[in-house]
């Protein structure tokens, strides 16, 4: 087939592109992904029994705000990296800000605490399982976000995969925070972050293979 014939083929009967096609795709993906992650949470874990009392504590909201802010930063990165030639821009600062804020809070908490209590503030009671549970909960979101991204056109595949992983990890952490009884900033700053970074690393490793177009 000659190039001119291909051009005629492509232009012939081409349908108009709906506006905001990219954003719509992510709304669909995040809707299904969030449904899957929440369902998984409801089946596997449930919510913490003292949820109503916990909502009165400022730390409960800080614990939700941390993954929520990372979710927003990762979403910005995902939207940008889904377009050819898209750059991270200030998405990186939006991602770094909540991490630094949580680490600052954790440092203050550790400094103020008695030396004997510091170990517990860091490890809590669930340090060994927390990151893996967050990563597990992120799986439905991860699948949905990768599906959306695959239908778009990322050109930096490892970075795009990492952003997709971080987005799903942050979503998983947000849901997990409703179950997890840990309330210490050092714990959140380490193990929650690790849980969100696990899918990001997986995304960076498999992005080049999974997102090719």
């Amino acid at each position: 087939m000659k190039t001119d014939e291909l051009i005629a083929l492509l232009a012939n009967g081409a349908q108009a592109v709906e506006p905001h096609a990219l954003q719509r795709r992510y709304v669909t993906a995040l809707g299904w992904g969030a449904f899957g992650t929440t369902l998984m949470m409801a089946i596997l874990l449930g919510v913490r029994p003292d949820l109503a009392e916990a909502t009165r504590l400022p730390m409960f909201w800080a614990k939700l705000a941390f993954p929520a802010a990372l979710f927003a930063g990762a979403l910005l990165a995902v939207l940008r990296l889904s377009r050819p030639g898209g750059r991270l821009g200030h998405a990186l600062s939006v991602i770094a800000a909540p991490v630094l804020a949580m680490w600052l809070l954790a440092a203050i908490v550790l400094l103020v605490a008695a030396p004997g209590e510091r170990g517990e503030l860091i490890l809590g009671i669930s340090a060994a399982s927390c990151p893996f549970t967050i990563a597990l909960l992120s799986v439905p979101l991860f699948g949905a976000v990768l599906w959306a991204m695959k239908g778009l056109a990322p050109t930096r595949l490892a970075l795009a995969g990492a952003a997709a992983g971080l987005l799903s990890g942050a979503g998983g952490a947000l849901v997990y925070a409703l179950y997890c009884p840990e309330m210490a900033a050092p714990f959140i700053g380490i193990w929650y972050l690790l849980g969100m970074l696990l899918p990001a690393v997986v995304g960076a490793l498999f992005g080049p293979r999974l997102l090719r177009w």
Partner: protein
Amino acid sequence: MSASEDRLRTLLVRGLAGDNATYHVFLKELSAHLRAFLRGRLSRLPDEVEDLVQETLLAIHNQRHTYDAGQPLTAWIHAIARYKLIDLLRRRAGRDALNDPLDDEPDVLAASDIEAADARRDLARLLARLPDRQRLPIVHMKLEGLSVVEAARMTGMSESAVKVGVHRGLKALAAMIQRER
């Protein structure tokens, strides 16, 4: 911004809104820019140029919903052309080295070349390998120029199945090209 940037962007934006005649002009002019750009970067692999022009045009068409009208068109085109160029070189890795470094300078619209060589890969042959639910909508709508309604009547498929068939078929075609090399 260059004159070609402004002109091509206007053409594309109208094309994306459903003006197929304008979209045809856009693809035609774009193909000349792509040819000049790729020829400059594949001077050791001249036989690959036209194939890659076709592959890049197909990618731009399939991925056209990722163009944001607020974004410079040159950067978007350059990123796609560069991505497909690197993909080709990676598939050929070890056999030939790239003779010109891949710059970040998005000068993809700087030159134009309307002398199309013959493509070595025949897309018509790949098209024939698609399943009927994708191939028939493409043949009727894209090659014979029938409307969605007419193509639906010809194939006995629903109108939305015809549209989906065209869309998926062109994506499958791009995937076949990647696997074939």
